[in-house]
């Protein structure tokens, strides 16, 4: 079975006052030559351990930028991201990312892609046999052991995304960052993967930040939906709790009044108060 996510976490979690992940007054502008684009302003967010947070907003508003800042792949212009009181300044395996386009290394097999991460993160602490087992265990978590010797070019988009998730989970990250993980998949595959992620979240209790532009996905999966206003200089417009008990079943939820209400609130935000600017000009 899966080992506890991170044994050290339990000691720190007793301190209730300390936020687990804190995004504090983050601002971000990109400079290109003389032109400066102000992408994010005044972003404040405190995320508890084990929380599943969905970030939703129209395309181009700065969701990926926010996620990359938490990942350490992009620097803030001002403000800070604190993970367990440590300021995030560079990327690291404690903040594993599942990228939108899977970004598996095409010259490695499915197994080798996950093993690369396992070897890097646990090279010093696990034996060779343990690392092999851990790789297989994470592949079986996403039901991909049958294709472990295939290369990314030989498997479907949904399978690639599963492997990307396995690679991220195998790092035992403190925070799992998902950038529109199911965006490019057909509805059926997407539903399957959503169920897988819910199941994994229930079993491991990971802290997850997931970017999405799918309202149903956000309501189904998350504990909390962070809605972003339109860019430029986007910020958090609304922060909504999803008060639905787990485990959740997509079929039963459809008629659930809380589900319907939450869904409506997000839709209202996205399509009335913060209409897509591109739709505006088209009208």
């Amino acid at each position, binding site marked *: 079975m899966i080992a506890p996510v991170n044994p050290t976490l339990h000691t720190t979690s007793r301190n209730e006052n300390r936020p687990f992940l804190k995004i504090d007054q983050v601002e971000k502008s*990109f400079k290109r030559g003389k032109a400066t684009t102000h992408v994010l302003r005044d972003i404040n967010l405190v995320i508890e351990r084990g929380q599943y947070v969905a970030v939703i907003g129209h395309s181009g508003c700065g969701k990926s930028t926010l996620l*990359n800042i938490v990942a350490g792949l992009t620097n803030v212009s001002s403000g800070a991201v604190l993970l367990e009181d440590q300021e995030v300044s560079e990327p690291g*395996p404690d903040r594993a990312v599942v990228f939108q*386009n899977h970004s598996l290394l095409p*010259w490695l097999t499915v197994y080798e892609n996950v093993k690369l991460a396992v070897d890097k993160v646990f090279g010093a602490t696990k034996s060779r046999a343990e690392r092999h087992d851990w790789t297989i265990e994470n592949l079986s978590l996403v039901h991909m052991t049958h294709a472990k010797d295939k*290369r990314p*070019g030989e498997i479907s988009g949904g399978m690639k995304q599963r492997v990307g998730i396995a690679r991220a989970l195998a790092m035992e990250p403190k925070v799992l960052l998902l950038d529109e993980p199911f965006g490019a998949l057909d509805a059926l595959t997407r539903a399957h993967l959503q169920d897988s992620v819910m199941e994994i979240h229930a079993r491991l209790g990971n802290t997850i930040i997931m970017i999405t532009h799918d309202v149903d996905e956000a309501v189904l999966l998350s504990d909390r939906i962070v809605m972003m206003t339109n860019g430029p200089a986007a910020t958090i417009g609304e922060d909504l709790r999803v008060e639905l008990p787990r485990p959740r079943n997509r079929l039963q939820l459809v008629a659930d009044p809380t589900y319907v209400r939450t869904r409506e609130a997000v839709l209202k935000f996205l399509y009335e108060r913060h209409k897509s600017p591109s739709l505006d000009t088209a009208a």
Partner: protein
Amino acid sequence: MTAHVRSTDFVETSAGRLPATVAAIPVEVTPKAANDQGDGPVPAAHENTDQPTPRSRFAGLAEKSGEWLANIVPPLLVVLALGLIWEMAFSSPTASLPPPSKIWAEAKDLILDPFFVMGPQDIGLGLRVMTSLQRVAIGFGLAAIVGVLLGALVGQSVWAMRGLDPVFQVLRTVPPLAWLPISLAGFRDANPSAIFVIFITSIWPIIINTAVGIRNIPQDYRNVAAVLRLNQVEFFWRIMIPSAAPYIFTGLRIGIGLSWLAIVAAEMLTGGVGIGFFIWDAWNSSRLPDIVVALFYIGVVGFVLDRLVAFAGQIATRGTAAS
């Protein structure tokens, strides 16, 4: 898929001008989306993620044998026809060049036994080719190692690129033989000089193509490496080399061709027992049929070298090419 590497490929990169290849030699290039990555960390959208499904092996095999015949018959016919024309054009006793029948009569020993040894300077053409190939192996091998390392440096660092690229652009236009006098002066010996000429001739396309390959590593792979905190050495072996392999092999293939061009020319001047000097020697003793046979050897060996590097490239880039 065969494509001509156009000198305009990848010319504009965010950090400056970088030509795709040194020479416009037709080479097989793995189609790969040439992304111009910004310096931002947002994953660049690259289109090389989806690939055709592999064909069934069996169907491929049957198709291959037919293809093979279709590939071998036309060139055979052309060679036969050319031989006939040649024979007719030069069969008069006053002709300046020997016809094939005369070459066969006078240079039969060279054609039939490539590996005879009749004395220190009288050996078969196969053995001569071997000594030339030895020099090429050393010179080209060094060029491959140094070229890939320098190319990685230039591709990875904007400042190395700014400093080194103009120097490379000037040096790469120097013809192989122009290097010979200065290398003779430096090494005071024919053999290392010939090797140096090969090295300096073949290194430029390797450097430049490697640099282009490194610059085209998708931002996604860099992000993966960053999240995993791969160190420089791990990044070089696990990401850079495999990702840039199609480009590196393009450079190696051009490089091996140039090596072979350079060695024959260099040996004409430096002497020894290589195939190049054999031609020069035959010319001085008016053995024209021998020269024709040697030319044939050189052509075939050059062709085989090219195919070998291409084949190695196909094997090495199977993973990358599939994506």
